[in-house]
């Protein structure tokens, strides 16, 4: 076994850390309070090649691997959950399905601008009545001549207001057993009949764009169907497996940040004549956080590594997502506790970590769904 990262992975970590600390850190509190998507930061991330890490050069990517990408998400998440979420969603949900399942033509047309960071992607899966039950999708796509006509409604779609293309899931027919066939269709956001609104007032990840999408007789060429028309459901399950690694990495970043802030504060804060880090009550909290952060890191990296080795990673991605995001929540919660009253104040940032971490236990498959995925993998 070799736990050592490659030089490229180390260099990526250093670069992304420097970038996140230098460019994003000064603006994190403002990004949260104003709930404004930092589009200019994404332009810079695009120029640095961060938006295309796990894609080959021929599609505008940086030719990195999943692990390198996970490290980048971790480092962005360590500084800003909002930016980290939009980043993870753009790559894992916006661009990845096109890379996995797209035709050469679709990749050139839709993936290249996403990988180069010239445009953002989004994945329209969730509906008002189809959350964890993605099979209950109500949006329909009916073939009319050479075009699909799409009707329906999507909600909680990350990055949609800033996206150039949205991959929308829709029912395209019924199989032999009468079950819905769900397909994924690429919809450019300037298509007539597509309305995107972003009115959510969120608890956390406030600087990440979240939007509602209404599709009314939206017509796209039938060539925009992504991948196998019969296997849309399987395809997005695979996409979500990959997405889980990135959300896990984001949780890891927030957990790491919580640890660093809590440890620094505990060493500095004096009560009863000494640093509170000298008290066992605080030490035990810090020891638990540090241990969980490291365990989460091992699981996230292992899931990413399995994906890079083209081995099955469904179960491990669920382990990673479940453990790392719940670790983030616990770590942020304890970091606030260690900060006491100061921790409740925005300026100290740990309260934001908790609000941001909460989303990670819900988005891209709730903690409960992760447990279901694991149980299914166990053969239950």
């Amino acid at each position, binding site marked *: 076994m070799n736990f050592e990262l490659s*030089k*490229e992975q180390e*260099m990526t970590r250093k*670069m992304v850390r420097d970038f996140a600390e230098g460019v994003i850190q000064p603006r994190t509190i403002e990004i949260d309070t104003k709930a404004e998507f930092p589009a200019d930061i994404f332009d810079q991330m695009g120029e*640095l*090649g*961060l938006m295309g890490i796990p894609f080959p050069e021929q599609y505008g990517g*940086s*030719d990195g691997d999943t692990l390198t990408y996970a490290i980048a998400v971790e480092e962005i998440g360590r500084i800003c959950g909002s930016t980290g979420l939009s980043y993870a969603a753009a790559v894992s949900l916006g661009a990845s399905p096109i890379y996995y399942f797209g035709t050469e033509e679709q990749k050139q047309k839709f993936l290249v601008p996403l990988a180069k960071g010239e445009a953002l992607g989004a994945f329209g899966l969730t509906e008002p009545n189809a959350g964890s039950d993605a099979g209950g999708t109500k949006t329909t796509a009916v073939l009319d001549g050479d075009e699909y006509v799409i009707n329906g409604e999507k909600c909680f779609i990350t990055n949609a207001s800033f996206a150039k293309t949205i991959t929308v899931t829709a029912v395209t027919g019924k199989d032999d057993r009468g079950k819905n066939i769900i397909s994924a269709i690429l919809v450019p956001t300037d298509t007539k009949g597509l309305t995107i609104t972003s009115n959510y007032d969120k608890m956390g990840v406030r600087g990440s764009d979240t939007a509602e999408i209404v599709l009314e007789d939206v017509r796209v060429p039938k060539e925009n169907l992504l991948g196998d028309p019969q296997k849309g459901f399987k395809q997005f399950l695979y996409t979500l497996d990959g997405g889980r690694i990135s959300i896990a990495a984001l949780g890891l970043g927030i957990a790491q940040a919580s640890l660093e802030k809590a440890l620094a504060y505990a060493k500095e804060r004096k009560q009863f004549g000494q640093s509170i880090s000298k008290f066992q009550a605080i030490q035990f909290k810090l020891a638990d956080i540090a241990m969980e952060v490291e365990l989460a890191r091992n699981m996230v990296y292992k899931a990413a590594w399995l994906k890079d080795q083209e081995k099955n990673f469904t179960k491990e991605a669920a382990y990673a997502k479940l453990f790392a995001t719940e670790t983030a929540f616990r770590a942020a919660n304890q970091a606030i506790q260690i900060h006491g009253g100061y921790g409740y104040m925005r300026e100290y940032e740990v309260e934001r970590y908790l609000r941001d971490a909460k989303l990670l236990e819900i988005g891209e498959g709730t903690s409960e769904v992760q447990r279901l995925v694991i149980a299914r993998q166990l053969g239950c």
Partner: protein
Amino acid sequence: MNIYVLMKRTFDTEEKIVISNGRIEEEGAEFIINPYDEYAIEEAIQLRDEHGGEVTVVTIGSEDAEKQLRTALAMGADKAVLINTEDDVEESDQFTTVKILEAFFDDKEYDLILAGNVAIDQASGQIGPRLAEKLNIPYVTTITNLKIDGDTAHIERDVEGDVEKLDASLPLLVTCQQGLNEPRYPSLPGIMKAKKKPLEELELDDLDLDEDDVEPKTKTIEVFLPPAKEAGKVLEGEIDDQVKELVSLLRNESKVI
């Protein structure tokens, strides 16, 4: 243009320095490209992009310095050279470094050599000027602006906060000061391409040097940390008495007057 950059791998400035057995403890510390050398690398890349040619980054050190060399390649340098002294050099000082670099540059064609103003670890600031002396070329230290026009370099340099403007002829050695440029982050494609760029590894043998040739001219007697900052003292009482006490403390305790 043939451009060379002298780079040093140093401690991260934010690291806490630990001394054990008279040496600075390196275990577990973070190492970075000396920040002043980053200005040199950035300037070299910009000059290459403007005038054509090639940027070669040179460092002396151990295998570990490969990471910093690769980072320089990822930023955009074309070639890297690691002069690995791990097995040959026990103790070294500025003389050692200059001697090795002199041997390295002996058969090289160069128009411009850039270095950092100082390395943030030992901060001698000697390597650039001493190497230029040995190579018998002009040098300008602490530069904050550089324009190359044919065989002439138009330079602005930082002189204790003031700016001095001067021209120098190529080949030339300059040392770079903060403000010269804003070093870029290495891009992801840059990082990935860096592994395919040439990184040559040399040892003293390859430069026709013996260990004796590079023996340091200085000896380290002691390595110690600055004394920990003590709590300040607040004087109390009548102003006249406070002044008297202060003067007496400055004279007798801290002995500054």
